[in-house]
């Protein structure tokens, strides 16, 4: 499928939406589809400092545990509390209600390490 054009992507199948120096992070539709029914998401704590591409949590589907990497580094300012009671939001709305956490960027140049929509589409087509 075509990816949302206003986002940047990582090779680990996360997306980033930049708004000034704050980034919203989620996993892509391709990722949620590969994982299957998501039953639990472990997110970084608000206030934690996380490094770009670091391991910051896990996403658990019915049968598997997958590491969650952050496509962008900085200070975690907010997590999606709605996922605690309804982790399947990530399956249903990966680019909307299923977002994971927000980060205040430590360095806006990190965006240069991410993929444009067309490049991510090539990545998952391989």
């Amino acid at each position, binding site marked *: 499928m075509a990816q949302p054009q206003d986002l940047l992507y990582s090779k680990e199948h996360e997306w980033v939406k930049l708004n000034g120096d704050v980034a919203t992070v989620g996993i892509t539709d391709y990722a949620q589809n590969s994982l299957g029914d998501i*039953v639990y998401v472990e997110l970084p704590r608000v206030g934690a400092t996380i490094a770009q591409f670091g391991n910051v949590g896990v996403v658990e589907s019915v*049968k598997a545990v997958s590491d969650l990497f952050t496509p962008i580094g900085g200070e975690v300012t907010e997590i999606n509390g709605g996922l605690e009671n309804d982790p399947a939001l990530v399956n249903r709305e990966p680019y909307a209600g299923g977002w994971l956490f927000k980060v205040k960027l430590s360095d806006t140049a990190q965006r240069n390490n991410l993929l444009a929509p067309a490049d991510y589409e090539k990545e998952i087509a391989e």
Partner: protein
Amino acid sequence: MTTTSNDVKRTALYDEHVRLGARMIPFGGFEMPVQYTSILREHDAVRHRAGLFDLSHMGQFILQGENVGAWADKLTVNNVATIKPLQARYNIFTNAEGGAHDDVIFYRLEGRWLLVVNASNAPKMWEHINAHLGDSGVKLTNLHGSNALIALQGPKSLEMLAPHTDVDIASLKYYFCAEGSVYGKHAVIARTGYTGEDGFELFVDGTDAAEIWSKLLADNRAAGLEPVGLGARDVLRLEAGMPLYGHEMTETITPIQAGMNWAVKLTKPEFLGKRALQAQSEGDTFARIAGIVMAGRTPARAGYKVFLGDREVGEVRSGSTAPSLQNQNVATVLVEKEAATPGTLLAVEIRGTRHDATVVSLPFYKRSS
């Protein structure tokens, strides 16, 4: 069945799975569907309507001869000679130490016996049986590759299958079987399964499998029948407290430890591994399989450590979210005796943090009928 270049085999239903959009994974030496739509959706179909499974990867052997019963009684824990014609029985082949070599089902047909073994154990079981044939007069034939196995499981399976078979399946009791036809094709129809629901297993020739599979689906889609993959099958069997070889039973985890004592007939004069199982049973100090329900939302997975107080007492063998239990997280654990009593509070270590869990009686789920 065919073999691809990397030696992963395909069942007679492979093309059907691809056509249905299944995600295929290697399992037990075969390319098998793990899910078609979603594990939760397929699980729901089996619990409330019915699901269709391809189990053609399971090993199928034919045993023939007058002494099959007496011969098999010496290699397995349950009674075989007392199985009536057209009856099925769960059984376990053990090793000399009492460990499980494989768990199997014997189906006694007219003039022959059908033995169904786990896919990954099929080569091992072929060798084991051949090595123990001796002068028993028992003849062994391998159907692994020519026969298919389709399972129809769920509360609506009887009404979905009945119009398409000449066998009076409504009168077929649980763990009995019959020979007849399904959509005009020869089939052994058994009222067996591994989901905790009512259902049937159809042993058919590989060349008939795709037609039977696709007709059953087409005729019953409107009534809620769905194809079901290995992912949902594992959740269903776990909820139903059914052991899976390699998890709750292994070469070193005995049937007694797995809680399958009902299948272990220590009154039999002899069988391979009996002495070890008898000693274990009388000693009653062994680590055993127990069920736990996690207090929180984090699932326990195979291999996680289990604690009673500060003491490590065992490990998780299978774990999943249980849709039939309001999505609580359940698991089987292999733990020391004192940690296995229902009501005991345990902790499971998950990524460095201990999470509360309570021991419960198995099965987690039992159908209401």
